[in-house]
């Protein structure tokens, strides 16, 4: 059994919270006391059934305003998989939360209201999914009950979406007609849409094959912490602790340490009381090298046969996440895995209107703005392009005046 992390994009009006509520409810993931709290709540659907949307909104501030203000994480499992849902709001002012929720997801569910079809918001959500490099997409055409479960309506929406998918170069796009409110095609295949021959949403989520980073040829491990017990028995012990981002390190592999460029060989891999022959993507291990090289936190161990790019000047997509606009005259901190260095945004190349996907030149960069910039870093970063290796192609910007995370960066090219 493995984990599927997915996120849902859609607004309150698309029935997003109801969809998640339905998945939890129909997989028996709601416990009795929570259900009791639900039933005693005075929010009900028109027909008197429980408003499942209540399951996903958490804070009192949100309940009072009837909105979702932040990313909420929800968990459920079936006997096939464990699921982690990042429930992100779809209002335009919360682009930053969508980007946050999408950054850790392997799959995105895009909700479309069958009555409205592909609208501006669908474009916005789909653009963000493509920007964040999510490979698997499920487009749920929701509220089919409101359009008499019509196959014609469903088909015409799909045709429109396919044009958008092509424009955004989305690869694995799947379509499912559903009614979250009535439970059609969420867990069980609906009898009310016998024209639909595909799987229910849950069955699809249970078997979708998520990308295995292990298959990547780019072996990367940023060093988080150097373990040196300095006891008598372990006097010369020096282990580099980190999580393998991608690829595989095998014993005796030739590796390079960046930024120094020093070469060595993997002598030993440790995981607590085990000494495996290989360390794979996703695993947190300790690596020992044959040679005595100077390595500290922020350095990256990579396989010598597939070196990352190294540059102090990087072209990147930026999503701005702070109320205070980007200031190209000041120095920010950039955090790239365990590496922290100073940087400036030296140039804004363009900004994207996420409703029309048009690019235009811009002087300023404000909350929820997205566009292409050039980042100039104090120390060179050893990175991969975001599309090749998400984990080593992304970074955050920190404003050292407030210490807030103000920007998300996706590396697109090293500037020559």
């Amino acid at each position, binding site marked *: *059994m*493995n*984990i599927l992390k997915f996120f849902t994009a859609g607004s309150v009006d698309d029935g997003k919270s109801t969809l998640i509520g339905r998945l939890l409810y129909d997989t028996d993931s709601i*416990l*009795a*006391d*929570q259900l009791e*709290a639900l039933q005693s709540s005075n929010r009900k659907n028109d027909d008197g059934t429980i408003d499942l949307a209540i399951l996903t909104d*958490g*804070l*009192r501030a949100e309940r009072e305003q009837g909105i979702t*203000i*932040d990313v*909420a*994480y*929800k*968990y459920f*499992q079936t006997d096939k998989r*464990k699921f982690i849902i990042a429930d992100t709001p779809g209002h335009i002012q919360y682009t*930053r939360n969508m*980007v*946050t929720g999408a*950054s*850790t997801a392997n799959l995105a569910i895009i909700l479309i209201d069958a009555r409205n079809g592909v609208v501006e918001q669908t474009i916005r959500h789909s653009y963000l999914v493509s920007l964040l490099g999510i490979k698997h997409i499920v487009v749920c055409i929701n509220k089919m009950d409101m359009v008499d479960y019509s196959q014609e309506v469903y088909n015409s929406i799909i045709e429109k979406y396919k044009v958008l998918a092509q424009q955004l170069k989305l690869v694995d796009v799947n379509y499912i007609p559903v009614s979250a409110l009535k439970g059609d095609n969420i867990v069980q295949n609906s009898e009310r849409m016998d024209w639909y021959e595909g799987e229910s949403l849950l069955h699809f989520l249970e078997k979708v094959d998520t990308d295995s980073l*292990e298959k990547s040829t780019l072996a990367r491990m940023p060093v*988080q*912490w150097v*373990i*040196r*017990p300095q006891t008598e028995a*372990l006097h010369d*012990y020096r282990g580099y*602790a*980190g*999580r393998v981002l991608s690829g*595989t390190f*095998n014993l005796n592999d030739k590796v390079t340490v960046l930024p120094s460029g020093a070469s060595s060989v993997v002598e030993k891999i440790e*995981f*607590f009381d085990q000494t495996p*022959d290989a360390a*794979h993507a*996703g*695993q*947190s291990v300790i690596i020992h090298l044959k040679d005595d090289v100077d390595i500290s*936190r922020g350095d990256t161990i990579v396989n010598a046969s597939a070196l990352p790019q190294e540059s102090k000047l990087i072209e990147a997509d930026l999503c701005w*996440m702070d109320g205070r606009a980007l200031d190209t005259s000041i120095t920010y*901190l950039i*955090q790239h*895995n*365990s590496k922290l260095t100073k940087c400036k945004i030296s140039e804004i190349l363009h900004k994207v209107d996420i409703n029309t996907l048009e690019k235009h030149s811009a002087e300023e960069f404000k909350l929820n703005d997205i566009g292409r910039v050039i980042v100039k870093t104090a120390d060179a970063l050893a990175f991969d392009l975001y599309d090749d290796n*998400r*984990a080593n192609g*992304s*970074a*955050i910007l*920190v404003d*050292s005046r407030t*210490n807030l*995370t103000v920007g*998300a960066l996706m590396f697109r090219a090293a500037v020559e």
Partner: protein
Amino acid sequence: MSTYNFDYLDELEAEAIHILREVAGQFEKPALLFSGGKDSITLVRLAEKAFRPGKFPFPLVHIDTGHNFQETIDYRDQMIERIGERLIVGSVQESIDQGKVVEQKGKNASRNALQTVTLLDTIAKYEFDACIGGARRDEEKARAKERIFSVRDEFGQWDPKRQRPELWNIYNGKIHKGENVRVFPISNWTELDVWNYIRRENIELPSIYFSHEREVITRNGQLMAASPFLNMDDEDIVFRKQVRFRTVGDMSCTAAVESEAILIDDIITEISASKISERGARMDDKVSEAAMEDRKKGGYF
């Protein structure tokens, strides 16, 4: 290429180890908040996996309400002995003696709320800049929205609207002097995940997690351990019952559940079939629907 089996527990474990090592790398004076409960016991095992054969780069901190189950204290002391790490105890009794907090009165009096003051004082005294805790997002709806690195101000307050976006696996631990970060490495674990992990790792737990016979009373529809810490009167009828506890907290606010579960396997079966969530057995969460949200804003764990 060799194949490898990386299941969901391995993935959760690797994520938690990564987070613990980020704490070590990013902070000057971190601490691990240890309650004696299964979640913080799991954290200790994860810290062993993150840092052995080295020492932990942080001490363990126990906020002792003075109303603990003796079994928890015994477990704590034996564990510290075994792992050979430093333990700091913050005492709620001391906070009461110093007049910093006032003991609650009445039948439902508990020291649970008082802990927050002792916790904040302990953080200030030792100048901890990061406190690792065992909270999980599946426990409660306010927790579901909290970040893994959760910044608190000088007063320990959590502001849900001012949370930093947390992207990819990058954690921003930058803070101003006086602020601190609560770090939750097992945020993405569910109660069942924790139990499955404890079984897999063969981790020993305090005995109160398993079925035992105990003197109890019924209070607000729940079974409470009869103890000098519970304000009891003639209306409270003490009787013996086969029970266990699903969480380990203050004796005055942790309810027992009737149970025959004597092995971890029994507990896992019981939880899988159970229809009451874990925090449902915590009376302090029942006060209002937004109880946890309010407590977190006030500096609670």
